[in-house]
């Protein structure tokens, strides 16, 4: 029972790490290697608001999320859109995006270093035991899990039951056909990209309650998110959510029953197995 609850809590963390990238890569079709840095920016924002103004990281979300949305919107218009216009094929766009966002990640690291210095940043918030079935769990992890659940469910409902969501999914399936039915593709993609950035940043703010951050930790989160998005399949956020929970449960079970030293190995074995069995990911569409 212990293992399942810890696994679910971890899975919730992973889901929120990956959700932003899923929106950006799966829907807007922009491979964003700076996704982890955006998450770290969100975390730094929350840490800064907490240490300077003792503002709860949950309240900090109110400021962090819109800020991240605006910044990512701007990044899309200024940096990504010219690449989209220039690219002749999807493949070329992906290569260009990987290079551009890789550069962007270094810029973000540099800016964070200049603003906050390179030290470890951490604070203590809700580091209290919270009992589930008589066992203590960290309250901050439980809160992060709940927020992550609300966010995932909200995003799913929005994508599948609103007109804006429908437009977004149409662009993700076929950008040129979407253009033909008078969807403003550039604007829709920008919306998905900005939303993805906002989700990543909110993930950072939530994770900052219990993880320690420094300016260079972003790449760790990008890697994890990438694994989950590819495992889950592009274009369907349910895939990423399922993949995140499978990963969380597997890692926890391996750490408890076999050896904590093998968690990383187990995660990648799982990744390889899924890719071998379903190269398009759990819920992904087979590429034409």
């Amino acid at each position, binding site marked *: 029972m*212990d*293992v399942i609850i*810890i696994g679910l*809590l*971890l899975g919730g*963390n*992973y889901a929120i790490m990956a959700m932003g990238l899923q929106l950006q890569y799966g829907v807007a079709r922009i491979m964003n290697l700076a996704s982890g840095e955006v998450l770290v920016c969100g975390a730094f924002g929350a840490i800064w608001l907490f240490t300077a103004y003792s503002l709860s990281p949950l309240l900090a979300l109110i400021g962090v999320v819109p800020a991240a949305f605006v910044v990512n919107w701007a990044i899309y218009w200024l940096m990504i859109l010219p690449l989209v216009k220039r690219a002749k094929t999807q493949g070329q766009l992906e290569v260009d995006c990987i290079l551009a966002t890789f550069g962007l990640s270094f810029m973000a*690291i*540099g800016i964070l*270093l200049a603003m906050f*210095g*390179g*030290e*470890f*940043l*951490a*604070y*203590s918030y809700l*580091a*209290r*035991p919270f009992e589930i079935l008589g066992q*203590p*769990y*960290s*309250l901050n*992890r439980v809160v992060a899990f709940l927020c992550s659940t609300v966010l995932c469910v909200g995003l799913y409902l929005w994508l599948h039951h609103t007109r804006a969501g429908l437009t977004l999914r149409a662009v993700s399936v076929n950008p040129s056909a979407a253009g033909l039915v008078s969807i403003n593709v550039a604007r829709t993609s920008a919306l998905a990209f900005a939303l993805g950035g906002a989700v990543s940043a909110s993930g950072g703010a939530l994770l900052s309650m*219990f*993880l*320690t951050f*420094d*300016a*260079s930790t972003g790449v*760790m989160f990008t890697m*994890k998110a990438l694994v989950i998005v590819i495992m889950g399949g592009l274009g369907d956020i349910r895939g990423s959510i399922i993949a995140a929970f499978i990963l969380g449960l597997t*890692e*926890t079970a391996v*750490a*408890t029953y076999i*050896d*904590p*030293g093998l*968690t*990383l190995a187990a995660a990648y074995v799982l990744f390889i197995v899924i890719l071998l069995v379903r190269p398009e990911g759990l819920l992904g569409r087979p590429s034409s």
Partner: protein
Amino acid sequence: MDRRSVIKLVGATALSAPFARVARAQDATVKIGVVGPRTGLMASGAAVTHFPQFKLWEHEVNARGGLKLKSGHKKVELIEYDDRSQPGETIKAVERLAADKVDFIMPIYGTGYNLAVAPVFDKLGYPQVTQAAVTDQIDTLTKRYPRLFIVQGSTTSYASSAVGVLKKLKDDGKIGNKVAVVNVADAFGIELANAGRGIFDKSGFEIVYDKSYPLGTQDLAPVMKSAKAANPDAFVAWSYPPDTFGLAELAKVENLNVKAYYSAVAVAFPAFKKKFGSAIENVLGCGGIQDSAEIRDFYKRHHDVTGVDADYWASPVYYSMLQMLTQTFESVGAMDREAITAHLKSHTFKTIIGEMDVRKQKLTRYWTVGQWQDGTFHAVAGVGFTDFKPVRLKTGWA
């Protein structure tokens, strides 16, 4: 010569005059190379322990007019390169500094990085003082490289003093003999765990839980829950900064009921105290300091000049090492590399941690285990020192 040529000539001379002056000014400074990780895995530690030290040193030396050498007072000028936490880059940076013709190269940050550049220092003929480098290869390395000085102690000394502290508690009947041990599966963590296992065994401890976890593990809850379930009397984590924080938070949440709690790297960091406040009272870890007016003054100056709080492990040793180098440069009176090496091998130095002695190419006295007591990280064990604070028992995580 027509008018235009004359104007050109005068203009060029006028323009070049400031450059000539700059060139002369540079001759008048002592150029010191600094290499370390501004970015990457090691950056967070270096931002506290490594870079601010050199800034403080430069500030203090230049504030008193510079280094007093035979040719007069010379200000110091730091030339810094980022090694991005990659040993390959560290090597390139040191070679670049040699090409810049620096007079001396300061210690590199981190064990692997210091050791990776030892052959390069040797080839280039620079004396190498290492810092933030803990290894069991001291004697082999210093024999191979006659200009190498290792100033932070051996891995085994850190493991054995940590176990020694617990053994004393056990022998005094204050704790039982069951110990849970975890370690991060990365360089220093693995070395400490390997060294520790045999020593625990010899000291009569029963290891009831012994597991490693990968660097960067997001959730250590399974580790902490399993360790707690083994019902230990003492908990030892040969850990690195991110997991030191993670484990302590979980120990607090799970209310890990041990009388002795030890975690290796980062317990001595100011951020650790900032995050946990009074909960970490009586937590043990690598490092420690012996309280003195001089050391307190050092922490104050460090904060005032660099804006960063120094740590309670390597920082005072770094500063002492820099005091040692300053005294050496001034006694030798020139930036003569062979003479500097010879001086380090034949003298002892007065520093904030007392007498510093590296005559055998390694530091003879250092603190190895500290404990948070009333908000200060006091040394409770060490090598070459005798006067320690008595160890206290952990009494909960409030």
